[in-house]
């Protein structure tokens, strides 16, 4: 039996593997060029961002209250949702009260967490993804495999076939033409819709503004073309003061795509201005918990600093080998290996193998714009998996009970050393009876046992010294 992720990597088709690897490599270089080119000391900036987010975690309650008051003063309505059901129900309720049946949405990872689109479709509401990558995922009935570039696992031929299949146009694999087709098709959707839905990259507590960071213009259009704007945002996205924002804006796009700023950085504090003819008359913001308060109270609270840049997965050797879908959850890569088991509705055990899918190389922490100590958190979760006896965490892991006994009882250890030499004449096939031993030896050669020499030498040399006295 293999670890699920090992099996996934083994079954992964070559096309997908190549697509993920080459895109990840490019992103890693773009990030390096942007940060080292534009800052003398990018690490000092990362540490500053880390510090701000630590302050946020320590004072989150006050900041959330401050944000709520500020948004209300600005004319927005704030809702609080404990979990997916409450969040989705809040969206449905708002739409019903507005007589709305059509939604256009920008990319929002929290809405994937709550499975908003499939929930709304049960109530005959059309909810169209407008981010190009997410649109393609939607028409394919697929799932995103990266939090910033959702179709990193697809190539242009696959996209072309999907567009043709959906009747969007004749087959083409030219990315420019495909994009033009999407522009035309989605343009009509924006104009026909009633509600624009977005997430938020940051929530500014001091002044009650959300910040949305995009390149395509789909968030702008979803909002500008409709009379109602609904926002869903994780409670950890708080930034305390407006003047703290440049720290994060200088890191986010550079870490994600190598840009100094994405094309559109929107700062939205409420419904449209009174004299502005275009845009929402109502703005609703849903503060989502969905497990975050439990994470805040846990030994892994630091993961809540994540600003969803994707740099960790771009650099992670495990992510590159397996691709995002191997993680069986919304958040893949190193951040997902920590966050996903903690947020999983069915409990920690379901994804307890994810923290083990790592060599603890630490590359993720080195590129993280908020310097999250991901390897530390992975170790804590491995410990938790062991303590809770999570089956998935111990696939192919040998029981360490025997070793623990031998290591704490010298007589047993010495006997073990003597028996060790016997191992050299035992056929490996016999050793492979144990599944973890078999798996270990698939890629390693068991070395010749040469133990016990030091004790022998120490005995002899002490005896000699005694003799000389």
């Amino acid at each position, binding site marked *: 039996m293999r670890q699920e992720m090992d099996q996934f990597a083994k079954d992964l088709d070559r096309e997908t593997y190549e697509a993920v690897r080459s895109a990840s490599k490019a992103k890693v270089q773009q990030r390096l060029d942007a940060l080292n080119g534009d800052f003398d000391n990018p690490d000092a900036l990362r540490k500053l961002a880390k510090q701000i987010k*630590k302050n946020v975690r320590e004072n989150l309650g006050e900041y959330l209250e401050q944000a709520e008051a500020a948004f209300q003063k600005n004319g927005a309505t704030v809702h609080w949702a404990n979990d997916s059901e409450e969040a989705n129900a809040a969206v449905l309720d708002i739409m019903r009260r507005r007589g709305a049946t059509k939604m256009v949405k920008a990319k929002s990872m929290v809405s994937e967490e709550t499975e908003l689109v499939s929930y709304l479709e049960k109530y005959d509401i059309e909810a169209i993804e407008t981010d190009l990558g997410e649109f393609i995922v939607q028409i394919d009935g697929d799932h995103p495999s990266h939090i910033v570039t959702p179709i990193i696992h697809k*190539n242009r031929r696959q996209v072309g076939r999907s567009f043709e299949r959906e009747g969007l146009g004749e087959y083409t694999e030219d990315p420019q033409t495909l*994009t033009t087709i999407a522009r035309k098709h989605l343009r009509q959707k924006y104009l026909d819709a009633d509600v624009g839905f977005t997430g938020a990259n940051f929530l500014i507590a001091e002044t009650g503004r959300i910040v949305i960071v995009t*390149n395509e*213009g789909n968030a702008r259009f979803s*909002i500008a073309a409709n009379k109602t704007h609904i926002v869903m945002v994780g409670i950890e996205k708080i930034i305390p003061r407006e003047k703290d924002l440049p720290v994060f804006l200088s890191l986010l796009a550079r870490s994600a795509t190598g840009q100094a700023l994405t094309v559109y950085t929107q*700062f939205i504090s409420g419904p*449209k201005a009174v004299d502005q003819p275009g845009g929402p008359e109502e703005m609703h913001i849903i503060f989502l918990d969905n497990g975050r308060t439990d994470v*805040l109270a846990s030994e892994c609270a630091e993961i809540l600093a994540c600003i969803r840049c994707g740099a960790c997965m771009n650099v992670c050797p495990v992510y590159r080998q397996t691709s995002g879908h191997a993680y069986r959850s919304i958040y893949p890569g190193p951040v997902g290996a920590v966050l996903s088991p903690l947020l999983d509705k069915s409990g920690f055990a379901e994804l307890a193998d994810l923290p083990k899918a790592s060599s603890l190389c630490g590359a993720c922490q080195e590129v993280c714009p908020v310097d999250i100590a991901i390897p530390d958190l992975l170790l804590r979760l491995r410990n938790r998996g062991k303590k809770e006896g999570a089956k998935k965490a111990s696939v192919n892991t040998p029981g360490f009970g025997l070793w623990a006994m031998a290591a704490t009882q010298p007589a047993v250890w010495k006997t073990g050393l003597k028996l060790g030499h016997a191992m050299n004449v035992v056929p490996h096939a016999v050793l492979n009876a144990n599944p973890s031993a078999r798996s270990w030896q698939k890629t390693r050669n068991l070395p010749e046992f040469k133990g016990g020499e030091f004790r022998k030498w120490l005995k002899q040399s002490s005896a000699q010294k005694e003799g000389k006295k």
Partner: protein
Amino acid sequence: MNSREQILGKVKAANQKLKGNTALPSDDELLLARSNNTPRSDALVETFCTRWTGVSGLLVRSEEELISFLQSQEATTGFIDPALGLTINKSMFNIDSAYDPGKVDTYQFCITPAIQGIAETGSIVLNDETTPHRLSALAPWIHIAVLTENSIVSGVGDAIACFNNDPSIIFVTGPSKTADIEGILIEGVHGPGKQVCFLI
């Protein structure tokens, strides 16, 4: 207990447990966020122009240049915000002076104001108050933002420090783009494919 009380209760309990006293950075420390591209005050316009064109923004410096550009794009139908006081020869173009959202896909170009420019990143700043219709700055293939040189500020931090209570402030840094398909950069997705700054 409603959801709000439940969530705040759990958050505050966790905050108590964390018992931290991490301070927020001082104004001096926040200066770290200014990149090396942030110019001194005597190089604002020059830096803005370099950075703007560096992100594929198009730059025109006079009405003649603007007209040439529009002709090169074979763009004749458009909307121009009358508050800008531009004297473009109406006979050469088919121009509305009130934005008609019903003609959202008829307008080939729209000309509206930008309130600020950011030299550090090559960005222009739009807002609700000065944009005649949100779609006029977003929907056409060609958008021309009119910017005065003396509204260019040095860095992102300076622009943020100027925020008022406008509900929709937008930093625009070039034409809309995507790299979702194989990481290949395509310009002109849902927003303008040609983003022009008319700098006066």
